[in-house]
Structure formats: C-alpha cells, structure tokens
C-alpha cells in the first residue's frame, strides 16, 4: 500500500489519482501506524512551508517522517519540507537533505510556472528519462544545488529539480501533472 500523507496542503487528490492509474493500491492518510507500515510514502504538497511544518509537528508527523526507512517521495512543497530550512516563513524544516530553500530573485516571472526540461538527470527515479523531456513546475521557492541533487533545472538560476538521499526521493516538479514523462517517473518510484 502506498500512503499519501494527508496534511494541510493541496494536491493529495491528484497524486492519489496518478498512483491509482498506475494500478497501485493507495490511501490518503495521517494515521501514524498506517504511514509507518506502508510500502512507500508520498508527501504531496501545494501550500505554505511554515503552516505545513506547524501542522506536521502538531500531529507528530515530523518525527515519523524522519524515521521512515521505506522509499519516501516528496513532491513540490513536500520536497521543500525535507530540506533543512525554508525562507518561506523562515521555517526550520525536516533536515533530511542538506540544503536550503530560497525565494527566486524577481528577475523573471515568479512563480516559475509551466513545463521545463533538465540539464542533469541521474539516479533510479530518472531511469529511461532524458534531459530534453519536460515536467510541470509551479513554485516561487527553490532548493539550492547540493551533493544530494539528482536533477537540475535552469530558471533564473540552476536549482535542484530533484534530490535523493538513501530512501528519500524528492521532486520540485509535479510528476502527477507531467503527462507521460511524469507517469514514468512515478512508476520508477513505485517500482523501487
């Protein structure tokens, strides 16, 4: 069973739909026992970092997430919450990935909205995907490039489009909204 973390941020429904279309049983849940025993866990997210972190702490989900040993995928805000610190609301986040989340300088349109490709793609999540393929992004904050960066996209500046460390995976883009390319990336995760 694939657990999709239920918290006060949007798009869990889109992720659930995408996972179901791929034929995997899934459940949107904030039940700690269900999350701990799930085969894989997805942290979706469209929302604000500060209030999302507060919610996770209130429910005791912050420590649960950090303790997970099965594959975990953070998406968009879900990825940013796995980093160390977010400029959005000056928020201490979960600290899995040793990188910070900063606001885009306003040189171009912000949020970065639409389909973008990659300059670097590596690791299991991107098997069979090439850098000219496009995924759907919509975000005003970005994770700085670090040792755990496995995909880089360029918008205003090069940033982490995906991160990976041990059992933790994360994408800044929305695989569940990235048409056929997104489906293959999700499938790679679900087949880990």
């Amino acid at each position, binding site marked *: 069973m694939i657990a999709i973390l239920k918290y006060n941020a*949007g798009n869990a*429904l889109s992720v659930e739909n995408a996972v*179901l279309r791929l034929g995997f049983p899934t459940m949107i849940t904030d039940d700690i026992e269900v999350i701990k025993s799930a085969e894989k866990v997805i942290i979706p997210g469209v929302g604000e970092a500060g209030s999302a972190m507060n919610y996770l702490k209130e429910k005791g989900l912050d420590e649960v997430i950090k303790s997970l040993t099965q594959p975990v995928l953070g998406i968009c805000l879900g990825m940013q919450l796995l980093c160390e610190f977010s400029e959005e609301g000056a928020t201490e986040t979960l600290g899995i990935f040793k990188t910070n989340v900063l606001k885009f300088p306003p040189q171009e*349109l912000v949020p970065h909205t639409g389909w973008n490709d990659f300059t670097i793609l590596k690791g299991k999540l991107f098997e069979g995907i090439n850098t000219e393929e496009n995924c759907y992004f919509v975000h005003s904050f970005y994770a700085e490039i670090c040792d755990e960066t496995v995909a880089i996209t360029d918008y205003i500046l090069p940033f982490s489009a995906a991160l990976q460390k041990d059992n933790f995976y994360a994408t800044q883009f929305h695989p569940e909204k990235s048409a056929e390319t997104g489906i293959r990336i999700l499938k790679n995760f679900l087949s880990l």
Partner: protein
Amino acid sequence: MLKKRIIPCLDIKNGRTVKGINFKELADAGDPVELAKRYVDEGADELVFLDITATLENRKTLTNLVTRIASEINIPFTVGGGINTLEDAKMIIDSGADKISLNSAAILRPELISEIALTFGNQCVVLAIDTKFVNEEWLVFRSGGTIITDFKAIDWARKGAELGAGEILLTSMNNDGTKNGFAIEICKAVSEAVSIPVIASGGAGMMEHFAEVFSQTNVTAALAASVFHFGQIPIPELKNYLKTKKIPVRI
C-alpha cells in the same frame, strides 16, 4: 528552458462540451473528458474548462465533471465560470481542479482574489480579463462581455496581481472569433505590466498567429478553442511549427 504553453479551452454546458467538434474517432464528442484526453495525447500543455451555464443547479454536475476530469487527466487544468465565492472555489479545487478562473465576481469584489489566493495559494487563481478597445481605451467587460466597466485592462491586471492572482488570462473581445490573430498591442502591454504569467486569448486562426504573439509579446501561453476543436490546427503540427520558429515548446 521554460516552454511556451498551448492551452485548448473547452466550453461546458450542463456537463457537456458545446460547439461542434470534428474529432471523428471520438465515440462521444460531447463528453468533455473524452475530448480532454484527446488533447492530452496530442500534447496540450494545460486545459481550461469554462462552464458557460454556471447556475446553481449545474454546480453539482460541474463538480462531478471536475472529479472525472481529475481522475483521468495528468496535466494541469483550470475551471472557470460562475465562481462567485470562496466556497465555490473550494468546491471546484476540492474536486480536483488545479486552478480556478475568476472574472465578473472579481470585478464586483476584488478581495475575492486575495481570499482564494490566501486559502489555496496564488498559483490556484487565474484572473480572466475580457477586454475591448473602445474610445481609445482597452476597457474591461464583465458578465460574459455584456457589461462594460470603467476598469482599464492594464490597471486591472496590475491590481489583480497585487491582490494575489497567479496568472492573467487576457481575452481581446475585438479579436475573439475573428481568426485574424491575437491582439498583439494589449497582450504586449499587459504582459510587460505584470510579473506573473499572461495567457493570450482571442483571435487565433493560423499557426502564424501563435508565433506572432509569442515572439512579439511576453505572454507565456496562448489559448484557443475553435481552431483546435474543428481540427484546423492540430496541436502536434502547431508545436512543430513553433519549434522551427525557435519558440520553445514541449514536444
């Protein structure tokens, strides 16, 4: 590189698409979900569903439709038409829409933009502006283009962005339906006035029109309905054409 987006718009009435559609292989061309799936396969970057009936009794039909679209479509989609309150927006977003589009209700009560943006994020709010060049001025119309307001398009776009809209959907009523091309002048002015994405709408008749609006203005997306529905411009052909014109598109 960030790609320019091509967005087909589907008009919905009582849960069905209106306007004749000539996708022959579709068993039921009136079903918005079937049509939407076809557009996704062809490479549409996003979809807009506009509920043109937008009455209270149709709300349930619409939310059921949104749920179906969300379960079958894996690209972002916007739903608009008759969204007057935060509750209306919540109903549509909770059913699975990625964004809602506001028009008349935002003109009558601009704070609605902020209310929805604060609840769901700026990226959820598309401000639709219907504008017409009258008396040397691009003025904003509401209620499906039937009522003139004293809002100027550029000012209203700026105000909308300040209030928290994440995108502007700019329709030129002078160009809409003419197939003579997008309204370059106002698309340019609005897309230079705001720092959020602007979607050009109204007037697409040939592939050249898309190249023109992307190369001469800062819009990041172009929306059209009939040229796609009637198969005059197949999306794959349009994207290949734009690519030859050095306009970045997702193929």
